[in-house]
């Protein structure tokens, strides 16, 4: 703590004695953050296993997968996946990844761990609520897992759960998998709402003396805006989920239209609207995309500045761009529904607003490159993942410009072009943000570095791997090859343009990339116990407050002494300063007149 010029003394909470209240039902934001990250790691490997099954089924539909027949005797008799099983894998892959990985780790995980320390607080504003958020998320995860093993198997309606397929009760599609799915999502909404409330109050209320909003690290800004998005979006999904559950179980008809015939059976409901679900779902769904990607943007800005030894280019504009992306995210949901028969006038408005998001996104990209320009770049593994994030964000963003136009979208809708787009921009880019964050904060969290060589090998295999997987999908989409088809071999019109060979290539690339993730898993576990010890409080020579506390941080972060903040978050390469960086808690006196450590 010798970097701290001045501090404000506050009262300290004693560290709990019992193992359970310290490490399991913990009130400590750092423990809760790690719990979220661990949950996401479990979920991401389940989600990846599902994607592997999806790819296997597409290319070798008749092939038996070892052990699968024992695990799912109905969905995969003798290990051969049925088309329904393929759809349920698709649904669960999307749900697992979007909710349990992309929403939990960046915000609940890293946000929880880092945000209070970065703003100079000894914990979140409501620690009990924080604990409740995590354990509700955990219950939600358990409910989602239940869907695999109930009669009838996991739901097949996709992560978007479009009715009427998702709304039909057991008489038509047997089983309660969809109900478990809805229960899981409803719990998740509640947990996320509580979490968002906590993040917002913490950021507004618990900042250290001198830490104005415009001095916040960009990571904090993105977590803050993400929390606002979550607060306003998850309630809508919760409401929609309640309506869907009532439609399924209590005979209402919010989403089920009249006169629907399925399997030669007339469904006895009156005049609901499946499109209503789409509106409610995407009103949540589009902000959700930004909930997944914004924290990655924050981490990227933070890391690019740190390892270029330069201030973030255009800090204020970055803040406005974050806010603009968050705000615009609420008025573009219709671009997911151009094919729903909406009025062309509405489609035009949604399209123009969608194009508007290109402006703050381009500003951010420009500023990231501006940050790198002329910097003394240190290519550590967090830096590699951040640069990778920028690359994936640009690639994925460009295809979004195509899809945001109704006329082009008529052609691309529900093709592999869309699959390529959203995987690159929201899936893989956000995951790269997480890898960047993990390798960056790992030494602070655990007092050991992740293995640099393994991280770099992991980076290159993953970076090239995801381009090999999703790059060709753009071409598939232009054929246009539809998505969500369980069967692509032996169908003439799907074989056009060599699509079978491309699918084969994608599956091989996916197998290699997924295998490469075992390097990450090994690195993670190995580094926890055997990694190089981090004896320095500030190994990356960074500027924000988390690097001013001991490694790993003690129970209440600052030992009751909250540092006073004197400067913005990215004071690198200050002219005439003794070092090439000034921490936020360094006074001018320390920066200019005394050498460090005097």
């Amino acid at each position, binding site marked *: 703590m010798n970097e701290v010029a001045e501090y404000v003394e506050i*009262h300290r909470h004693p560290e709990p004695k019992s193992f359970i209240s310290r490490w399991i039902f913990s009130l400590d934001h750092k423990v809760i953050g790690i719990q979220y990250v661990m949950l996401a790691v479990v979920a991401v490997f389940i989600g990846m296993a599902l994607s592997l099954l999806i790819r296997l089924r597409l290319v070798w539909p008749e092939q038996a997968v070892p052990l699968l027949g024992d695990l799912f005797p109905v969905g995969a008799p003798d290990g051969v996946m049925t088309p329904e099983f393929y759809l349920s894998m698709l649904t669960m892959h999307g749900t697992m990844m979007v909710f349990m990985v992309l929403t939990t780790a960046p915000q609940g995980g890293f946000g929880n761990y880092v945000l209070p320390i970065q703003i100079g607080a000894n914990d979140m504003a409501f620690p009990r609520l924080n604990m409740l958020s995590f354990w509700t998320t955990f219950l939600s995860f358990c409910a989602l897992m239940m869907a695999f093993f109930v009669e009838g198997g996991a739901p097949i309606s996709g992560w978007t759960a479009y009715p009427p397929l998702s709304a039909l009760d057991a008489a038509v599609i047997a089983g309660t998998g969809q109900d478990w799915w809805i229960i899981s999502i409803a719990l998740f909404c509640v947990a996320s709402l509580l979490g968002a409330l906590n993040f917002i*109050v913490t950021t507004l209320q618990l900042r250290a*003396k001198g830490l104005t909003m415009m001095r916040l690290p960009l990571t904090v800004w993105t977590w803050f805006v993400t929390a606002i998005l979550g607060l306003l979006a998850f309630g809508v999904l919760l409401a929609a989920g309640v309506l869907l559950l009532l439609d399924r179980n209590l005979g209402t008809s919010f989403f089920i239209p009249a006169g629907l015939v399925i399997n030669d059976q007339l469904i006895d409901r009156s005049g609901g609207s499946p499109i209503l679900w789409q509106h409610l779902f995407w009103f949540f769904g589009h902000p959700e995309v930004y909930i997944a990607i914004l924290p990655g943007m924050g981490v990227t800005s933070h890391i690019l500045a740190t390892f270029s030894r330069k201030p973030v280019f255009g800090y204020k504009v970055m803040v406005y761009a974050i806010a603009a992306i968050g705000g615009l995210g609420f008025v573009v949901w219709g671009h997911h529904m151009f094919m729903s028969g909406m009025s062309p006038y509405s489609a035009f408005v949604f399209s123009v607003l969608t194009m508007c998001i290109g402006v703050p996104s381009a500003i951010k990209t420009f500023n990231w490159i501006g940050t790198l320009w002329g910097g003394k770049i240190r290519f550590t593994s967090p830096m590699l993942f951040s640069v990778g994030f920028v690359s994936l964000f640009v690639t994925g963003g460009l295809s979004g410009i195509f899809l945001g136009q109704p006329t082009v979208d008529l052609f691309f809708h529900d093709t592999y072009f869309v699959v390529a787009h959203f995987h690159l921009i929201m899936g893989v880019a956000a995951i790269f943000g997480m890898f960047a964050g993990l390798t960056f904060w790992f030494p602070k969290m655990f007092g050991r570095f992740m293995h640099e060589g393994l991280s770099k090998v992991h980076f290159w295999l993953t970076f090239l791997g995801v381009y090999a997987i999703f790059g060709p999908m753009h071409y598939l989409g232009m054929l246009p090859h539809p998505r969500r088809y369980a069967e692509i071999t032996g169908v003439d019109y799907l074989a056009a343009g060599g699509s079978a060979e491309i699918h084969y290539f994608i599956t091989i690339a996916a197998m290699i990339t997924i295998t490469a993730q075992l390097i990450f898993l090994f690195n993670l576990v190995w580094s926890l116990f055997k990694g190089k010890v981090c004896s320095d409080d500030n190994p990356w020579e960074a500027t924000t407050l988390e690097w001013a506390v001991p490694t790993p941080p003690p129970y209440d972060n600052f030992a009751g002494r909250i540092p006073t903040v004197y400067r913005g978050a990215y004071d690198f390469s200050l002219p005439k300063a003794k070092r090439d960086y000034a921490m936020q808690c360094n006074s001018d006196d320390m920066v200019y007149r005394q050498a460090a450590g005097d």
Partner: protein
Amino acid sequence: MSTTLAPPPVVEGETNEPPRPDTGGGGFPPVWPPGHDDDGSRGPDPGAEAVVRYKLGAWVGIAGIVMVFAAFTSAMVVRSGISGDWAPIDLPRILWLSTALLLASSYTIEKAKRLLRSGADEGLRRWLAVTLALGALFIVSQWIGWRALADKGVYLASNPSSSFFYLLTAAHAAHILGGILSLSYAVFRVWSSAVWVTRQATVEATAIYWHFMDGLWVYLLLLLTFWR
């Protein structure tokens, strides 16, 4: 550039106090002077921080709840206009009693809040307890309303209008139950002679939430009455 050590001349309207270090002035730090108890009972500062924090929490929570009911409302507006099967229902007349109970409870919790500052424990407890009772009676009154509709053969799935009636009233009742929990906690806090800070934070945050529940109910009643 200056080479003299003389203080700079005083310009009219300014003082020659040394400039304060620029800390940007931001943030609302939890400023506890050294040597205070965990409960922060010895001074006004810790209380102020905790009270603001809890009240802000209540407001942010309200924003989230508003979105849930906004979603229900827009679903109702869309559903009522999209096909010809919407048949208006007559609202049970006991809803007016519910409304009166809830409005009265807003008055009583405000009364309790006013007594908080004067330190009149007896009155504070009494008004909180009365609010709690009114809240419970509201739930009972709503229950009677649901039974009255069901006795007429109007169930959840009878018609989209009845679906939305049950949905909105039940969702509101669930939130009232949350308020009742919070009120019970406030009563317990006052009863167990908790320190001023904890009391004030609990009672004031609960009061904000409770008033909002009152306002939300009036809104729902108007919606159900006029959007038939």
